[in-house]
């Protein structure tokens, strides 16, 4: 299969039903993507496919053919969110961290400052058993301020029909 991995073209021979998670870890040697539950519940294996977060444990690698895949190794290690996670102690055991960072990257890079509610929603699919989430949410907001300045215009309030009961 051919795809783009962390910005570079990649070609490899894998069974088309093999999980993208296993292709990344075993065939590509990128073990930053973690397997947590293996059933799409915990978000530890989150990667970006064409910019959108997905759980790589539920994706046959054939579906990533021709796509742009970003794993945690695709961030340079000094992404504002990675630095903020260290600053705010948003990681303890670290298993959920790569998935959390990739799930929140879009919010951090978007120009508008996300509300806490928005951050919580974006990370609802990522379970963390160590931090209690508060430090992670702080890190996301802090990284946004770092990248765009603390006075970035805040995101429009969630529309009524989206706000829920």
């Amino acid at each position, binding site marked *: 299969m051919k795809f783009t991995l962390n910005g570079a073209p990649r070609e490899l021979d894998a069974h088309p039903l093999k999980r993208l998670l296993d292709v990344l870890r075993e065939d590509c040697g990128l073990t930053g993507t973690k397997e947590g539950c293996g059933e799409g519940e915990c978000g530890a294996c*989150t990667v970006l496919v064409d910019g959108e977060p997905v759980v790589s444990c539920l994706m046959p690698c054939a579906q990533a053919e021709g796509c742009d895949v970003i794993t945690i190794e695709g961030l340079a290690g000094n992404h504002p969110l990675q630095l903020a996670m260290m600053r705010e102690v948003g990681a303890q055991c670290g298993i959920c961290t790569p998935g959390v960072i990739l799930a929140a990257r879009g919010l951090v890079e978007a120009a508008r400052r996300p509300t806490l509610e928005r951050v919580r929603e974006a990370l609802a699919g990522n379970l963390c058993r160590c931090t209690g989430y508060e430090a992670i949410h702080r890190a996301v907001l802090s990284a946004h301020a770092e990248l765009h300045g603390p006075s970035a215009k805040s995101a429009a309030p969630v529309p009524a029909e989206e706000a829920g009961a």
Partner: protein
Amino acid sequence: MRTATAPFTLRRARTLDAALKILREEPGTVPLAGCTDVYVALEFGGTPGSRYLDLTRLSALKRITTSGEKLVIGALATYTELQKSRFVRARLPMLVEAARLVGGVQIQNMGTVGGNLANGSPAGDTLPVFAVADADVVLAGPDGERRVPFNAFYTGYRKSVRRPDELIVAVEVPPVIGKQWFRKVGTRAAQAISKVVFAGVRGLETRLALGSVAPTVVRLPNTEMVLNGGGSIDEALRALADEIQPIDDLRSTAAYRRGVAANLVRQFWSATA
């Protein structure tokens, strides 16, 4: 994954005709879209099949559009796409709400409407919405398309009228008149399968549907009849008790589900008054 997939095969179709041909010529082939049910089954050691057909290249089936008065939702539309669609937001806000409460963002980016229908779990979050919207399921097969009323689509627990050589290609939703209301009750807000899921419409005609209280998602004709005939909510809840059959399972108990189902119908009735 507990099930070894190496002996299995995967075909990828580029056109609907090619997909239907594969289903016809290779019986037992399992269609794949978001994989959020099939890959969970494989993880748990299940074998949904040994031949798989990936549909995700059929981009025409991702479209959400309108046709005359009807909202037409392509089977490959994801939960994220449902939330973003201006047509769905304007016409079927209860479906937007249901889509928001499926899994987390990652699952919403992968899971599809067609998959929710095909999987046929009585806990499927979008299903009560289609039940109260009187939607039609559009099936494509060797002899062309046919439409089946959603409320006649399921014949039993995870059983439907879809033939193995047919694919769900769309859901068509007529205009829904009245206030729409959706509520899912699970262990936590995200990433939890429903203990009970409810959708209701209150207009000239009140329509109610519940998931996870019977082998399939169910409309509640007797409860509706009481309310549409001017009966009280207490009378309606007595009718409700006779038309649901919840069970004890790993997520909840029959008794709890009965209580929650009644609370949801009562809450719907006062919230939409």
